Structure formats: C-alpha cells, structure tokens
C-alpha cells in the first residue's frame, strides 16, 4: 500500500510481489468462505446474504489496495473521494430501489 499520503511514493528499490501475493491469497480465502457458507446452507437466508455481502465488500478493499494502488496519485488523491461517493450512490440505488419497488401499500391478500 504505497503512497498513503496521497503522493506517489518514490522508491528506488525493486518493487516486490509481496502485496500481490497477499492480495491474491486474501481474495481466494474470502471467496472460499463465501462459497462454503452458501453451498452448505449453514445459516438462515437473511443473515447469510448480509454476511456474503460483507465478504464481497472486503474483496473490494483487497482489489483496491493490493492490486489497484488506489491511494496513489500525482497530487491529492481526489479520485478516492469520488470512488467513495460512487460506492455510496451505487448501494443507495440498489438498496433503495428494492425498498421502493417492494410496494408497501400494496393490497395484501
């Protein structure tokens, strides 16, 4: 996770693959947990789906920090703000659409 201060870190030494290997391992482990939890029907559907979504959320972090170098930038990393806003909006659209389209005052039979 180079360049946490928002500027491109200058490194003269060779970049090592350590971060990438950790990231790959983490993504495989997280995926495996998801698959096992889901395919063994280990818990109730509601909490299970929440847990799966949390695990998927962790995978975003893995990709962003271990592979995509999200905090690197020339100058302040404004794109991090935009990505955060975008993530909030993405979840807002998806979840609020479900909420709206559930039609609360529907006639119930």
């Amino acid at each position, binding site marked *: 996770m180079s360049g946490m201060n928002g500027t491109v870190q200058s490194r003269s030494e060779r970049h090592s693959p350590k971060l990438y290997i950790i990231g790959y391992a983490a993504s495989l482990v997280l995926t495996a947990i998801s698959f096992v939890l889901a395919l063994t029907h280990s818990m109730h559907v509601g909490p299970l789906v929440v847990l799966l979504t949390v695990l998927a959320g962790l995978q975003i972090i893995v990709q962003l920090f271990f592979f995509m170098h999200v905090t690197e930038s020339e100058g302040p990393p404004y794109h991090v703000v935009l990505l955060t806003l*975008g993530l909030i909006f993405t979840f807002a659209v998806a979840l609020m659409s479900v909420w*709206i*389209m*559930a*039609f*609360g005052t529907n006639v119930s039979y």
Partner: protein
Amino acid sequence: MSEALKHFADTYLMWNEGYLIWISDILIVLASIGIVAALTYFKKWKWLWRNWLTTVDHKKIGIMYLLAALLMFFRGGVDALLLRTQLAQPGEHFLSAEHYDQIFTTHGTIMILFMAMPFLFALFNIVVPLQIGARDVAFPYLNAISFWLFFFGAMIFNLSFVFGGSPDAGWTSYPPLTELGFDSGPGENYYLIGVQISGIGSMATGINFIATILKLRAPGMKLMRMPLFTWSTLASCIVIIFAFPALAIALALLTLDRIIGTDFFTMYHGGDPMMFINLFWVWGHPEVYIVVLPAFGVYSEVVATFTRKRIFGYSSMVASLMLIAVISYFVWAHHFFTMGAGADVNTFFAVASMMVGIPTGVKVFNWLFTMFRGRIRTTLPMLWTLGFIPNFAIGGATGIMLAAAPGDYQYHNSYFLIAHFHQMLIGGVVNGMLAGMYYWWPKMFGFTLNERLGKWAFWIFNIGFYICFMPQYALGFEGMQRRMYTYPTDMGWGSLNFVSTIGAYLMGIGFLFIVWQVLYSLRHMEKDTTGDPWDARTLEWSLPSPAPHYNFAVIPTISDRDVWWEAKEHHHTSDLLPKVDQIEDVHMPKNSARPFLLGLSFFVAGFGVIFNWYVLAFVGLAGIAACLIARALEDEEEYVLPAEEIVATEQSLGRV
C-alpha cells in the same frame, strides 16, 4: 416502381400526415441547399472542416454547443407554441391527438436534453479552462467526441419529425405504453437511440471537466480560491457522472425490450414497468440539478461583478453546491409518490426533497447580501439574474409544496406541476444560461451585444413567462391534467388557458428579440478591446477577448480568490501578463477528424437500430470500432507551438 416509391414516401416520409410535415420537408431541403450553396460560393468548406469540424479547442467546441443550444431552443419553442395554440380554447382542432402527443414529447426531450444540456456544456467549455488558468480541458480529444455525440444524437432525434415519425409517449417515455405492443413505430426508437448517444457524450463531458478542475488548475489556485462558476461546474459534473449511467441503463433495457424482445418493462412474463420509472428518475431528478447548478454558478459570478462586491458567504456557497449535489441523489422517488410505495418510502423521499430547499435558500440569501451595500448595475446579465430571484422563490415554494407527499397526491401530473417545473427550468436554468451567455459573450466573440434590444427581450420574455405560467398553477387546482390534447368546454378551463397561450406567444416574441439583438450586434459591432468590458473579477477577464487559442502564454500564479479584481485594486495587473523570457514552447493537442467520424458512425449505427436495418447498424458499429482502435494505436497526439509564435501573438495583442 412508382408503387414502391409511394410506399416509401408514405411509410418514412409521412406524406399523408398533412401540411406540417410538408412545410418542414420543404424548409429542411431549402435550408440544406442554402447552407451547401453558401459554403461553396464563399469557398468555406475547408475553413469549416479545419476550423470547426475537426477542432479540439475548448473555446470553439463551446461556441458550437452554444449555436446548437440556441437552434434547439428555437425548435423546442416552436413546439411549445404549437401546444399552446392547440390548448388556447376548449375543443380546439388545430392539432390531432397524435400530433399533439408527438409535439409535447419532442418539446420536453429537446428542451431538457438538447437545449439545456448543450447550453451549459457551452458555458463549461468556454469558461472553465479560462477561469482556472488552463490551456484546454484535461482531454481535448474526448471533449470533441462529447460534442459530436451530442450533435449526432440531437440530429437523430430531430430527424424523426420528417422521417418515420416522432416519439409520442412523453419525454419520460413510461412503459408499457412505450413497448412494442402499444407503440410499434420507429418514433420511440428514435427517442431511445438519440438520447442514448448524446447521453454517452454527456458522461464523457462530466468525467472530462472533473479531471480538468481537479488536475489542471493554475499554481496557487487552491480549491477554496476557485471561482464559484467552476465550483458549480464541478458539482454539476459530479452529478452527471453518477446520474447518467442510470439513464443509460433505463434506455438500454427498454431498447432491449423493443429490439430483441426481453421482458424488463413489458406487461408480460413478469415484466415490471415501474422499474423503468424508478431508474429513469434516478437520473431524472439529479438531471434537474445538473442543469440548475451551473446556473447558480453564473448568478454568483454575475452578482459579484455587477455589484462590485465580493460574493457573500463563499464557503456557504461552496458547501451548499456540494450538499445539493449529494442530496439530489436521494430524492428521486418524489416523482412517483402515487405509485403505491410504502408510507415510509414516501415520507423519506418527501423529507429529503424538502431538504434541498435548505441549501438553495441559503444561496438566495447569500446573493441578496452580496447585493446589499454594493452598487448594482442593471446590465443584461444582472437583469436576468434579478429576474431569476422571484422566479426561484416562487418555484422553490411550490417545490416544497410538491415535496409534501399528501399534497403531491393532488398536484401530481396536473398543471400545478407543469407550472412548477417550468418556473424552475425557465426561471432558474434558462435565465441562468442567458445571463451566462450575455456575460461571457464578449469573451467568446470579442464584441458586446446591444443593450437596448436585450432589455426589450428581457422584459417581454419575463412578463410573458408570468402570464403563461401563473394561470397554470390555478389550472392545477381546477383539476386539469397534463398531456390532454384538448378539454371540454364545461370544465371552465378555457379562460385561464387562453391567458396562458398569450403569455407563451410573448415569450416567443422575447426570443425573437434575442435573435434580432444578435444579428443587430453583428452588423453594428461594438468591439471589446479591453478584454474586461464588465470590470469583472475572475481570471478569464485578464485575457484578451477572444482569448488566443493557447489561452495563457504563461500560466499565471494565483494568489487570491478574485484574482483579477485584486490585481486591479492593487495596481499589479502586470503580474498576470506574460513576460517574454518566460514564454516557452507549448504542446497543443492536434486537430482530429476522428471525433466527427466517430459521431457519424454512432449516427449510422443508431439509424440502423432504429429501423432494424442490421446491415447498416453493423457498418456503423464497425466504424465505431475502427475509430476507437485507431485512437488506441495512435502515438503523436500533440504538436509543438513554438515560443516565437506565441510571443508574436502576444505582441500583436499588446500584452508583452
């Protein structure tokens, strides 16, 4: 042969549809011949190609956007007058139901997407790089692509009127009415494809200007030193990049329904038309803020300049812009309070919608207190700004009323709603865009517009506006729905509708005065030699009018918020002028024909999809792919503008 020709003419040219079509056909043919003849006679083809069609210069692209916006304003305005003529009295037969439906659809779509959007892109392009001290936008080539996508999208949409038939289900295009079973003509396809193509261009513009503002500011221009128009552009572009994907998806899914027969929004196989409405407004409401935020920026610049005073509460102004941008994303369901979503949903979106009133109210107070203890010059930009405030106050009040969900059950789809959004979009957006046009006109073209004719235009347009739309609030309380092509005599809606139509015609006359004003000023040109005709405050006014194509010979260092005003106050304007020894070679982006060809390919592909002519669609798609691949493999995108040439230009402008 003649049978085939007649079939073609009836199906695609709609020769049995009456005199409106014939007149349009003749006008289009005459106009095209006239343009071609004029270009040939004056030997301007090369000039057109080199200077305009292949340009990547943000200033020229801005001017092309402006021209397109004004043309579309005319087209949308004629639509409006046709609608108002039909509604002037009960039981009128000027238009048939089918024609009325088409015209209100094209009126709405054109005014929002092909008038308001290019108008504000025109201002973004012309102003933002100059205001932040940049030589161009971050991605000039992409900027040209944006323009041509908008242009060809608008072309496709406008073509529908004379080739195959216009869309007729409203600019909101709600399914299942827009599905094949109810609407089999090409009109709806025209809507979907035209708006989709220009929407892709809008997304690219949003990305481009965010990158420009965040990355290309002159040294010393901290975020909190940026002019408010640049801030409003940033806010607007943030909303663009997060809202337009929703439109793209809504339109794409409806297109899939119509072209390949999926069941997203049909009445069949579990299709859910309401999901389209949901997605459409995920874009649709933020869209309103996309177009109004830049207008806020214009007002902020204009008010400060023409009261000779620093803008009041700059930080509040910035905070409110950003708050509006974010809240705008959480209010979309107020467009369908009556859809039967739960009371919890309606309450949430009602309160969120009302909350938009807080930052906008703050902005109004800040503008007022900028004027307070200033010196108010009622020039044209200031007049349109002053005209905006009462409009916005009334429109804002009715907006809060509409946001109160139980009230909305009664206003929804009534003329009360029509009056409200026209008050916001004309009083808020059109006023702002015109104020901006007047304000930056000298910077674009190097001459000022005639004030006297402009004042006629202002007063006639604005008085016409109130006469047109105030009665419509009352009509809403009388229970008149939108989109009725006619109404019976016994409802008693006749007199108010008649008054409203008179107002609409006054607005039309006001627009003609603007056209007259421009033509008159072209003949009796009052050249702006100072570069700063308004005694203004921000960086763009330190440049000559019009700005040289590299904008800044030397990028200035910014030390203050109103940098040009402060320099004038403290008599060190020379700090913002280039010094010969500082002028270096500049890499400028090369002109390219590819953005134009890419737009053309989209046009061809879109046309193929609209009529299900798949060979044509394939040809267009191949063109798109070819343009993209050629760009990917391109190496040299820039050329070197030698320092000597810059020095010579600056010397001729008397700046070094």
